[in-house]
């Protein structure tokens, strides 16, 4: 049995209070980091752990940190990405609501490693309870000397501010988030320069996901070898999986990286409702290309999912059973991306508008001969031609639906109706 690490406190009563967190060993990793390690040591430790970013892209965290210039005439910033807008994803919310100190400790150690004295946590505005709990936890941590000036007798100073989002999925894209933090409309920035060199207020900035940051105290406490020993060596660690849709036990599960998708769904999330069969699974939030039932033996880690043409993304696992129309699912996903497109580039803004129209008419039984070819062409026109990964994700996902469930699309067009209603 796998012992939960990241969710250890989440189901403890009053897990969000500092007394509970300290009683479970909380803030000892911060103390160890400040007393036994230099910032450089922490960066090296995280590199050796092979921790990869949990926000979606899987970028090696230690490497990202090492891009921050050692000397800089400007302040450095840490930004925690808690925008969590990827449909199917709810892990960061649960961490912040039930164990906010774990995130604060993770931020403090990470900020020490990169030399930042200020962090902003960008939390989506809908997460009112998470925001309150985080603010309360920051006040508790300040009162106990885990945040503020000269933390635990060291010469490290660090404060955390909560920045509340206001409802735009694109703010989760890291450079759009920086614009939003600067008080502008959220639109992705051109890279380079990369945020590590010129990010928030043109200062060196590291952006990490909530789950990435909460791994850090455990790496400090238990060592890089322990972390690397969980799951595949190149993509290791304890992992949070959000399971929703047609399963008997939807919920948040912590298991090793690389666990087979089928095992996650059948053994942990209770499998599909009685009498139904799984038809398809979206493994990493709606940006991740859909996997048909035959493919469920894939391991849930960055490399294994990429190898089958999908991605781990945010590990938002959406299970779809055999009563469901895949054209409808695909349409709803593209409607989402179209709604959230920031409008900066034409292939995404106009291309998705067109895709939505074609998909809606197919679903309504009004599809025409040539619509499938048109969708193929639109995917091609969008993929690889957009400014940020939103447009690419939309096109990649649609292409997978068109490939794996082509029969269903064609049936809609030929029968001039949705076969599922």
């Amino acid at each position, binding site marked *: 049995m796998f012992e939960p690490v990241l969710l250890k406190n989440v189901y403890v009563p009053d897990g969000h209070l500092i007394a509970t967190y300290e009683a479970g060993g909380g803030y000892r990793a911060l103390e160890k980091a400040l007393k036994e390690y230099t910032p450089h040591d922490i960066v090296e430790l995280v590199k050796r752990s092979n921790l990869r970013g949990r926000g979606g892209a899987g970028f090696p965290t230690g490497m990202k940190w090492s891009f921050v210039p050692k000397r800089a005439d400007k302040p450095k910033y840490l930004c925690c990405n808690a925008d969590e*807008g990827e449909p199917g994803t709810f892990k960061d919310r649960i961490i912040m609501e039930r164990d906010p100190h774990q995130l604060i400790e993770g931020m403090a150690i990470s900020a020490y490693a990169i030399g930042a004295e200020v962090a902003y946590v960008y939390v989506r505005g809908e997460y009112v309870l998470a925001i309150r709990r985080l603010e309360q936890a920051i006040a508790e941590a300040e009162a106990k000397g885990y945040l503020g000036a000269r933390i635990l007798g060291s010469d490290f100073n660090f404060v955390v501010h909560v920045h509340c989002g206001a409802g735009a999925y694109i703010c989760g894209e890291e450079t759009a988030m920086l614009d939003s933090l600067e008080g502008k409309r959220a639109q992705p920035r051109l890279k380079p320069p990369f945020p590590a060199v010129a990010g928030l207020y043109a200062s060196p900035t590291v952006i990490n996901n909530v789950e990435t940051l909460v791994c850090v105290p455990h790496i400090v406490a238990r060592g890089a070898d322990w972390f690397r020993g969980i799951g595949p060596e190149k993509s290791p660690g304890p992992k949070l999986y959000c399971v929703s849709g047609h399963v008997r036990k939807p919920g948040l599960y912590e298991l090793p990286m690389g666990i087979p998708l089928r095992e996650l769904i059948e053994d942990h999330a209770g499998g599909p409702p009685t009498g139904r069969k799984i038809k398809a699974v*979206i493994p990493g939030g709606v940006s991740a290309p859909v996997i048909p039932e035959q493919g469920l033996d894939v391991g849930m880690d960055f490399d294994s999912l990429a190898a089958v043409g999908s991605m781990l993304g945010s590990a938002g696992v959406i299970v779809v059973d055999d009563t469901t129309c895949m054209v409808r699912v695909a349409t709803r996903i593209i409607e989402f991306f179209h709604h959230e497109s920031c409008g900066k580039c034409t292939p995404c803004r106009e291309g998705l508008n067109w895709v939505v129209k074609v998909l809606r008419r197919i679903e309504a039984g009004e599809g025409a001969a040539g619509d499938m070819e048109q969708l193929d062409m639109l995917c091609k026109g969008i993929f690889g031609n957009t400014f940020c990964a939103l447009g690419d994700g939309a096109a990649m996902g649609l292409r997978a639906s068109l490939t794996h469930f082509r029969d269903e699309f064609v049936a809609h067009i030929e029968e001039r109706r949705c076969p599922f209603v």
Partner: protein
Amino acid sequence: MTMREKIEQAAARYPDRRSAIMPALLIAQRQHGHLPGPVLEEVAEILGVERIWVYELATFYTLFHTEPVGKFHLQLCDNVSCMLRRSEDLLRHLEDVLGIEKGGTTADGLFTLSTVECLGACEMAPVMQVGDDYHGNLDIARIDALLARLRATVPHSIGADLAAAEPPGE
């Protein structure tokens, strides 16, 4: 604390006052319910930033409302995980019992009904946010009980007679 003091407190968290526009708009919206032109002007004045910057954010972000909304803003998620758990049945029911279409507000100004993108709570799909609170694992009976509870918080409202209905066993 006055709105101005709250906004000043938020602004102190950033090296640049432009960064405080979003927090200031949230503070102002909590105070006024929505963000009409004069409130936007006031925010710009308090922060000492360009008015166009404030207008731009108030219209870009979906959580800001430049038009009035009902006392209770029912925000039903209809993204994939909620759709798979039949959120559209709930939408139809809400439209029926409230006598409005999505996007509309009841004549008494109590309820505005919207559909929203994923609320990040798919483990309890279907989900609806009302004000600050999430309500999950919804079905028609729970929706009815929730509406009754919300009406009961408003004295002398036309729906007050429904307040006696059972609250859901959560």
